[in-house]
């Protein structure tokens, strides 16, 4: 007999006193002493007994981890059949012992706890992989909890045990039961039947045990035991509170006070029968059963008549008062235990009310909710409060009051055909189960009147002080692990869908019809005659207005003046003719023209991932003004990029806007517009293009698509930039540099830039140095920095390893620079860049610009702050520490060869 084995094991535990704990003997004695000292009120013998139970459960749980899904399913099925076969036997025992409830209903409960629960769990996977989400790369793997300490109630004793045993075996857990003392014998029998059947069909010995003649101290000891993984406390508030106070993970579920709204559109015959079925089921012992029915005034009398016609006794005011004084304890305001689970006729007799012999239910009209209305509390017996409501609002309010009078999080019921009222009720109630047009108690159990998960344990959420609001089920008995595979991020490559390049590409603008075109440009473009060139190719009949903006990085006020022009001329086409500043200004003009509400400051909010940014740009209009960008420098690439940089004069900083809605619709890369570029501008913008390509190539967002463009641009720039610089009228060189600039821009439009740009933006804004020149000052130092092992790696799902150094080496190979090792190749690349910068006569140190060391040192905190706030570095392969930004600034200050000069210490002044 399993019970004998259980007894024997318990005895063995007492005799051996920790002798089998698995720990080394000395340690065992020590821990035993410590435990004994802590367990005030428990004898050493009792502790040894409890330790024996826990140890036995721990062993069973450990052994159980080896079982397969097929093993547990086989055992569960056998247990369910045993439970069904013993449903009446156990129900009878429960009735005999507890004197609560109805035999026939307890049989049904035992059957629901086995058959219905089995129906829910039978096809569920609870061992190993239980769910797979291949599209998300997630696999959920179930692991048992181990030892569960389970408290079971007096009201549903055997059904709760059956239910929890099935859940435990299905999830490979061992359970130590602590039944309500007044239902111990029937629960012991239920545990025994389940344990015998489980072990007979292969479950590990000791998988279920039951505390004998236990006390609250016993419970407290086991609850706090280090080898108990979870407490599942179904019962009164005391048990639930003890469980939650133990410091252990707990499923504490407890009392309710179910309000019912019987609304005037309801099917009254159905409602009345359902309420009677539910409230009389097992004499009202299910905590989800109806407690107070709030009835619309229009149907109130009719409903009571129907109740009376089906065997309910409608109490007079005097009877109600008498009932309230008797079945509710006036001291505590709670139901009297002697009434729990008793028949209506017995309660009537107890109180002294005369009722018909076949009376099923006592209905007590109440005038309010609260302590002064005793029958408005939970009553686990067939006494039902009823309240007449004059409106939906009043009805909902009273239901809320009932809900808040000890029933938070539990169950609420509504009978109605009005979906709006049902919805309102659902929103108003704080209940895990809101049962619609069906009996509360059986409805809440799930699987009978609805598709909720079958349970004998109702989670009441935080309102009820519980950790869950669910119908407690197998998933609460599992640790579900998530195996998350690395998923390649979705990438993109977005550029304007029309890019026209090579000489006379500008002719293509004649294919774009327009009523009103605004040419945004700067004074020098007019002087060079470029504006006239553009005008020449616009279709006949196009009204053209030229908006000339200053030849400098645009400020917001310049943009807003342009927007006024766009509005005035109702522009349907904008042609940006100029360098990066002009094109950027035109991008923002279009944005504000089409979305005046757009807040530029807000749109410039920082973000880590373009796709997950908090601030979204306005939705692109379907008939938006066309933006044609004609680049007149070979560097910024603004003609194809989604970026726009504004200058914030007030704060001395650059504000970067980034969104693909900013990208021009058409890009014109025509070398005729760059033939007149001065040498200095050729050098500065050319280095900007080179920086774009280099940074895009090593960016954490680099992809084969961006690499194709970046790695094509780099050799073109190395070859043609010096020629364009030294021979400005060399059209072939100008053409290739113009194309290289656009290629680099397409790369960084999609892979972004890096820390070089963050440093250059900060430094350029603070000391008013041209962007390309600022980039040049940083470039050799940043490459060396990125090519070395990072102090801090940049988290990057798109990269499978740190490849920046290897990519630089590949660039060196592409340039034919030679070298055997990666380090040599990186050094050769830096040297080649140094030589290129020398050839372009670019200043090689910040010091050369006439900025004193003292001034630079004073500016350092601001420089570092601005650089760190700049979004550019977030795609850098190496995450820059602020101290490293300081170091890089100083290297740029010192200039060439600083990295190899001995004795130069970085000044950490940020």
């Amino acid at each position, binding site marked *: 007999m399993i019970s004998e084995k259980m007894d024997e094991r318990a005895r063995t535990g007492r005799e051996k006193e920790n002798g089998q*704990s*698995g*720990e*080394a*003997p000395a340690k065992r004695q020590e821990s035993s002493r410590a435990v004994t000292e802590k367990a005030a009120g428990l004898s050493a013998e009792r502790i040894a007994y409890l330790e024996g139970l826990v140890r036995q459960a721990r062993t069973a749980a*450990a*052994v159980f*981890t*080896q*079982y397969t899904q097929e093993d547990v399913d086989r055992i569960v099925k056998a247990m369910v059949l045993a439970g069904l076969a013993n449903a009446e036997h156990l129900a009878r025992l429960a009735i005999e012992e507890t004197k609560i409830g109805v035999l026939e209903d307890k049989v049904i409960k035992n059957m629901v706890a086995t058959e219905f629960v089995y129906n829910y769990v039978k096809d569920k996977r609870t061992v190993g992989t239980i769910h797979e989400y291949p599209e998300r790369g997630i696999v959920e793997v179930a692991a048992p909890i181990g030892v569960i300490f389970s408290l079971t109630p007096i009201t549903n004793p055997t059904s709760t045990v059956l239910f929890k045993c099935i859940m435990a075996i299905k999830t490979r857990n061992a359970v130590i039961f602590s039944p309500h003392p007044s239902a111990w014998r029937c629960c012991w029998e239920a545990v025994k039947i389940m344990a015998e059947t489980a072990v007979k069909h292969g479950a590990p010995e000791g998988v279920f045990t039951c505390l004998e003649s236990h006390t609250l101290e016993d419970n407290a000891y086991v609850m706090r035991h280090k080898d108990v993984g979870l407490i599942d406390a179904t019962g009164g508030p005391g048990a639930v509170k003890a469980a939650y106070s133990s410091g252990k993970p707990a499923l504490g579920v407890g009392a309710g006070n179910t309000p019912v709204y019987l609304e005037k559109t309801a099917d009254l015959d159905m409602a009345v029968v359902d309420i009677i079925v539910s409230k009389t089921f097992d004499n009202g012992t299910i905590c989800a059963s109806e407690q107070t029915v709030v009835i619309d005034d229009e149907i109130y009398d009719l409903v009571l008549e129907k109740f009376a016609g089906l065997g309910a006794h409608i109490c007079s005011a005097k009877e109600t008062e008498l009932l309230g004084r008797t079945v509710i304890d006036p001291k505590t305001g709670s139901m009297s235990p002697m009434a729990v689970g008793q028949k209506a006729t017995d309660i009537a007799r107890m109180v002294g009310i005369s009722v018909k012999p076949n009376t099923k239910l006592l209905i007590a009209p109440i005038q309010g909710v609260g302590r002064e209305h005793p029958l408005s509390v939970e009553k686990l017996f067939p006494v039902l409060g009823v309240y007449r409501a004059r409106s939906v609002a009043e009805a909902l309010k009273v239901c809320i009051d009932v809900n808040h009078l000890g029933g938070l999080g539990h169950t609420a019921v509504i009978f109605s055909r009005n979906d709006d009222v049902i919805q309102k009720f659902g929103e108003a109630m704080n209940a895990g189960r809101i049962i619609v047009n069906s009996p509360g108690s059986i409805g809440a159990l799930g699987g009978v009147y609805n598709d909720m998960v079958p349970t004998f344990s109702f989670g009441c959420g935080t309102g009820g002080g519980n950790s869950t609001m669910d119908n407690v089920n197998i998933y609460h008995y599992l640790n579900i692990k998530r195996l998350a595979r690395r998923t390649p991020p979705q990438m993109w490559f977005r550029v304007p869908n029309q890019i026209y390049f090579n000489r006379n590409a500008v002719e293509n603008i004649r294919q774009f019809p327009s009523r009103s075109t605004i040419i945004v440009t700067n004074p020098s473009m007019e002087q060079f005659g470029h504006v006239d060139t553009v005008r020449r190719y616009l279709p006949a009949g196009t009204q053209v207005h030229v908006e000339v903006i200053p030849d400098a990085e645009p400020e917001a006020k310049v943009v807003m003046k342009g927007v006024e022009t766009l509005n005035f001329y109702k522009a349907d086409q904008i042609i940006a003719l100029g360098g990066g500043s002009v094109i950027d200004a035109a991008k923002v003009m279009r944005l504000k023209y089409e979305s005046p509400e757009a807040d530029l400051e807000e749109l410039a909010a920082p973000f880590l991932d373009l796709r997950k940014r908090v601030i979204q740009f306005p939705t692109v209009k379907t008939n938006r003004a066309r933006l044609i960008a004609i680049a007149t420098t070979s560097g910024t690439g603004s003609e194809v990029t989604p970026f726009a940089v504004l200058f914030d004069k007030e704060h001395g900083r650059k504000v970067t806007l980034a969104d693909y809605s900013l990208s021009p619709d058409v890009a014109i890369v025509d070398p005729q517009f760059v033939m007149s570029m001065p040498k200095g501008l050729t050098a500065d913008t050319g280095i900007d293009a080179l920086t774009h390509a280099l940074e895009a190539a090593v960016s954490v967002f680099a992809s084969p698509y961006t690499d194709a463009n970046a790695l094509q641009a780099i050799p073109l720039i190395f070859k043609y930039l010096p020629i364009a610089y030294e021979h400005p009228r060399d059209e072939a060189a100008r053409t290739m540099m113009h194309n290289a600039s656009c290629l680099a821009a397409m790369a960084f439009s999609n892979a972004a830039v890096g820390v070089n740009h963050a440093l250059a933006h900060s430094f350029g804004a603070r000391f008013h140095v041209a962007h390309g020149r600022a980039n040049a000052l940083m470039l050799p130092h940043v490459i060396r920095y990125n090519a070395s092992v990072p102090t801090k790696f940049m988290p990057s799902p798109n990269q499978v390893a740190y490849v920046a150094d290897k990519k630089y080496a590949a660039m060196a190979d592409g340039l034919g620079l030679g070298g055997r090792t990666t380090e040599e190749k990186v050094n050769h690349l830096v040297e080649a860049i140094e030589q290129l910068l020398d050839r372009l006569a670019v200043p090689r140190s910040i010091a050369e610009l006439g900025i004193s060391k003292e001034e630079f040192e004073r500016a350092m905190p601001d420089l570092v702050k601005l650089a760190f706030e700049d979004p550019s570095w977030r795609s850098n392969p190496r995450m820059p520490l602020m101290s490293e930004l300081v170091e890089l600034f100083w290297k740029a200050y010192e200039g060439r060869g600083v990295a190899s000069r001995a004795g130069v210490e970085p000044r950490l002044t940020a």
Partner: protein
Amino acid sequence: MATSAGWQTTDAEVGAPSWQAAREKVERAEGEVVVDCSAVGRIDPKALRALEDLADVADIKGVKVALRGVSIEMYKVLKLVKLGSRFSFLP
């Protein structure tokens, strides 16, 4: 039979998952004993109790017990019942 397991020299080796036999070996042995668990499919509570006894006897006798060929599943069970630290493990 003395065997060498690289870093560990053994004085006796038990080749079958007979826990009683293993215990007897341990009682008679000195130094170290290897228990071959490679044939153990699933360990049950009875076997766990036997292993615990084995560990107790080994402690008293001052013998080290090494388990060979323990499956991942069995290793996990030994960790859960806190027996893992009382044995050494051989591949």
